């Protein structure tokens, strides 16, 4: 079967279901910001030049531009060749710049003296994270069971030795990765899912912008994994290319993003986000760094309280 395309699926669906379910109207919803991922070509106190998607992007740097490189960074962090994610505040002004940020989340396979080997799921392979002494304390506070079989989620910065942990992403769920309590099979699917949104990948990631959704169907060319857990939220099944509307409940921004990966790893995390009050349990979506930043999320914070509405076909009488 040839590779499916998002637009072709949308067109074919419209042949059967003319009307599309509109996302719940939010009077307070704000549009997403603009964010870009690229490689630093040149940087000066007033200008940042990036190579992004085969083109050169020029962004204005101001005194308010905040640079992150494993912590608060300065202009020196913007060395040519480093991958960055930039969130713009408008008119091409860089508001936030994350240099070499990466995230490692998955199941702990082995622990060394200052390294942890992590299985990041069937799509993302394995990673060996270095946890330096200054980061070990905060990581252990949020991950008390740093042992094989348990989940880990850390924000890292790229280094020549691989990802180096900077701080914990979220708090470690207390159960073993394979011991998730799924909702009852008959639990109804809510119109809007509530939980936590996180991000995946790194600043130089090549995945198209969008979301990893925990319940991608495994049949046909839908793109899901047969052995994926069902997650701790009653998700409706979707496919790669399906559109979901993600609302950042902390910042109020909303954007429609396509499903670009099956989030079988997110389905294992039955955790909360406490960015603005405690969210309900369940990692309902993982976003690419650009999509996450555009929705107003802080990449180094790791998550925001989110609601997700899936654009499902509406059954209307023929």
């Amino acid at each position, binding site marked *: *079967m040839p590779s499916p395309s*998002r637009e072709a699926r949308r067109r074919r669906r419209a*042949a059967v279901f003319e009307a599309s379910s509109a996302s719940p109207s939010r009077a307070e919803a704000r549009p997403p910001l603009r964010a870009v991922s690229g490689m630093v070509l040149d940087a000066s106190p007033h200008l940042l030049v990036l190579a992004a998607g085969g083109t050169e992007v020029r962004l204005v740097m101001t005194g308010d531009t905040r640079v992150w490189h494993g912590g608060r960074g300065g202009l020196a962090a913007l060395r040519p060749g480093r991958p960055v994610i930039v969130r713009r505040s408008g008119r091409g002004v860089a508001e936030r710049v994350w240099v070499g940020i990466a995230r490692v989340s998955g199941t702990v396979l082995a622990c060394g003296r200052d390294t942890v080997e992590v299985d990041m799921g069937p799509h993302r392979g394995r990673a060996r994270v270095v946890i330096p002494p200054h980061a070990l304390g905060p990581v252990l506070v949020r991950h008390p069971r740093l042992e094989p079989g348990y989940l880990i989620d850390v924000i890292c910065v790229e280094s020549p030795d691989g990802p180096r942990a900077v701080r914990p992403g979220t708090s470690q769920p207390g159960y073993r990765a394979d011991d998730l309590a799924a909702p009852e*099979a008959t639990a109804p699917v809510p119109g809007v899912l509530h939980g936590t949104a996180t991000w995946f990948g790194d600043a130089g990631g090549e995945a198209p912008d969008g979301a990893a959704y925990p319940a991608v169907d495994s049949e*046909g060319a839908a793109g899901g994994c047969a052995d994926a857990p069902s997650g701790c939220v009653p998700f409706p*099944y979707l*496919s790669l290319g399906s559109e979901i509307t993600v609302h950042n409940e902390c910042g109020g921004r909303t954007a429609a993003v396509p499903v670009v990966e099956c989030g079988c790893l997110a389905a294992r995390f039955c955790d909360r986000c406490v960015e603005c009050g405690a969210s309900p349990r369940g990692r309902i979506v993982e976003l690419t760094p650009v999509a996450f930043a555009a929705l107003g999320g802080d990449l180094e914070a790791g998550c925001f309280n989110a609601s997700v509405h899936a654009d499902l076909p509406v059954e209307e009488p023929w």
Partner: protein
Amino acid sequence: MVTAFQNTQVLLLAAVLLAACAAKLTVRERAADAPDHVHGVPVPAGLARLTAVRRSRGMTVGLGLGEGVLGLALLMTSHLSVRLATTVAFAAATWVVGELRVHRPDAGCGCFGGLSGKRVGRRSVLRALLFTAAGVASLSAPLTGVDVLRDVQVQVGLVFAVEVALLAALSPELAELLERRRMPADPPCERRRSPMAETYATLYESEAWAAHENAIASAVPLDVWREGCWRFVAFAARVDGRDAEIVFAVSTAERDRTVRAGSVQPDSVRAGGVRAAIPGDAALDPC
């Protein structure tokens, strides 16, 4: 009036003890109702062992039989020892339920066998306390349960009804009983796993397939994907001598699956023979 109230307590306690006996003997507790971990933290070994003993089938059957004997004795005799034993049993139950509420509320009290799997709350403690009070009130009741039943007075009936209503309000078991009686619901179509074989079987038996079958150019679908309650299957087709695509949407529901169909021009026709480049329309790599 006081005597009628006391007699009613005998009847109430006998009914409750017999109901608890029947529930313990017939409704088994679910194994998953007492988790080993609470919020990921293992339950202390001592508490876990005590819970295991309390929830063992032998203990449940033993307690149930004891309650049954007490209930029958309350019906048959007015001897003080039976009333006293009943009161002491309910006082002990009040203490146990109170301790459970503090130490293992998640494991359920098991008062009515498998029906009492819900979290132990204040209601359960208050209920046991009321039973103990009823036991104290019944100590000097002149009649046996059977005698009360033989000649039911209006006051007895009223008091009994009020007490039963009060205890029903304090009993989480009723909701569990209703839930078990209800027909098991089908899984919602949005999250029901639906194998491809089922989709194809439904499709091939449908009127929509029969209507479009002759137009389909290839039995191999162009694309198969799912969105919520619908699995889409797209085939290449020839309609009125022109290339087209027939798209079927097959329901993923447990029963009464429906099939819808529609046709659409293929990309190559729409873009004048060359597939249009659409921003954000990257080919999707299945995992």
